[in-house]
């Protein structure tokens, strides 16, 4: 799959933003006033910024409102609704925390639930696609949610919690790679089932339908990013999880350095997740490539 920067940016940033909103809704940390204001500005900048970035790849962004209508069948539509519901609910909760020094517990719990539901619906957009075996796995939503929770804990300043969540997320990441590498073969879709031509023999793509490229090849048969897959996996794991954990466990006394370390951890985590998300797209192989003898 073509790793569109807008979609990578969207899933990385909004996942982190909604993760932070979930923690804020649960009351970790139970901040009020100016501190709460800073937390909510960061969370909304990430979540809304991500959502806006996702509209850049649309052919007709001006019609985006229509995308809220098909929640009964479409995960993309459900994601839109969940995101708006989460942002509105948490917005109200934030107003209480910032200006009224209040924590409306039920509203916070609801907002946290909706925030995580948004991340889940995002992941289901990819998980539902049988055409991309690497995404069509139970581990895909687990991965999205674990990243969001780990990043959220990191941003929410939950030092202890974030270390455990980061370690758990890195385990999910490794499992996703191991399972994902076998997914295409396990799907049972081959050139033989695609063309129905085997008859006991073998099929080879002889000539493509066109001399140039086309939308399908540009969108679905992206092989450039896979060349350095192994190195990128190491980078994703290092920046996304190992470095942040190291930054968090380093024994430091001064609160300034502690904050600096936390900032480094967040930045490093963000880079790692973006690299992982790049691989999520670049390594995903669409079955339509079989008709071209490529994947």
């Amino acid at each position, binding site marked *: 799959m073509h790793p569109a920067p807008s979609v990578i940016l969207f899933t990385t940033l909004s996942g982190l933003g909604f993760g932070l909103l979930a923690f804020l809704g649960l009351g970790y940390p139970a901040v009020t006033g100016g501190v709460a204001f800073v937390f909510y500005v960061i969370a909304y900048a990430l979540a809304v910024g991500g959502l806006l970035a996702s509209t850049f790849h*649309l052919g*007709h962004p001006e019609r985006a409102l229509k995308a809220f209508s098909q929640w009964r*069948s479409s995960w993309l539509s459900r994601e839109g609704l969940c995101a708006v519901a989460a942002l509105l609910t948490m917005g109200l909760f934030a107003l209480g925390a910032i200006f009224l020094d209040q924590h409306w517990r039920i509203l916070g719990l609801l907002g946290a639930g909706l925030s995580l539901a948004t991340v889940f619906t995002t992941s289901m957009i990819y998980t539902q696609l049988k055409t991309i075996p690497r995404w069509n796995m139970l581990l895909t939503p687990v991965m999205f949610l674990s990243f969001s929770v780990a990043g959220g804990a990191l941003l929410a300043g939950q030092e202890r919690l974030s270390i455990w969540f980061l370690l758990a997320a890195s385990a999910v990441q490794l499992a996703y790679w191991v399972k994902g590498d076998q997914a295409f073969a396990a799907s049972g879709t081959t050139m033989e089932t695609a063309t129905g031509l085997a008859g006991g023999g073998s099929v080879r793509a002889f000539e493509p339908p066109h001399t140039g490229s086309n939308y399908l090849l540009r969108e679905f048969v992206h092989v450039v990013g896979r060349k350095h897959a192994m190195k990128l996996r190491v980078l994703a794991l290092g920046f996304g999880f190992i470095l942040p954990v190291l930054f968090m466990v380093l024994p430091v006394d001064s609160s300034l350095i502690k904050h600096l370390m936390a900032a480094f951890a967040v930045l490093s985590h963000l880079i790692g997740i973006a690299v992982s998300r790049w691989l999520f797209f670049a390594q995903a192989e669409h079955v339509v490539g079989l008709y071209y003898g490529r994947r």
Partner: protein
Amino acid sequence: MTELPTTTAKKMGLVIDLDTCVGCHACVISCKGWNTENYGAPLSDQDAYGAAPSGTFLNRVHSFEVQPKASPAQPDPAAQLIHFPKSCLHCEEAPCVTVCPTGASYKRVEDGIVLVNESDCIGCGLCAWSCPYGARELDLAEGVMKKCTLCVDRIYNENLPEVDRVPSCVRTCPAGARHFGDLGDPDSDVSQLVAERGGMDLMPEMGTKPVNKYLPPRPKDKLEEQIDILAPLLAPVTEEPGGFLGWLDKALDRLPGQSSSQSSGGSN
């Protein structure tokens, strides 16, 4: 509404005969010709006369080489070249319809044709992602999803002569490799053809239940038999010359010495 209808009154679709398709791409051209100036937005090209031309097509013809397995009867079978036209299969369980967030993609209850309402399409591309067959292409000029309409503006068009009320690709195919009809009716010509020739689904494991069927290629004739077709033409017209030539032939045969064997139709 992007929920799929539970049943459709008809299942209009194509039957594509991989045995007769000669790979001329006439269906591709006629499809582009009809659909660029009729239903919906035109099918644009990018850099059409430049170094890297590409464009939107609703129908494309692949070519595959099939190497049959060796058998005692055919220890060294020749490879077969199969031309493989591919367009929307108008699936009964069309994943492209249910993923659409705006309701632009829909499957018609009356005839099962899958269409895109282009004024509702936001061009997110998710339907193309969900299609295993590569039947949908986002038009880069228009920013909306394009797909085969089964020439919905031809098949019911009473302004056209009756013979033309079939999809453009079917009307054009010079080999008669494309057939159009109601695959939901077991007595229709297309359904009979599918039953007779063992019509198949593409990627059945995807669970899309395609309406369009493909007729598998028949096994090819053997090479020796093909050459024998010419043998009668090359054989001498009269096996035994009569009259004076016959007497001369026999007389010469009786003379001692090697005479070359009688020329025959065999060729080397």
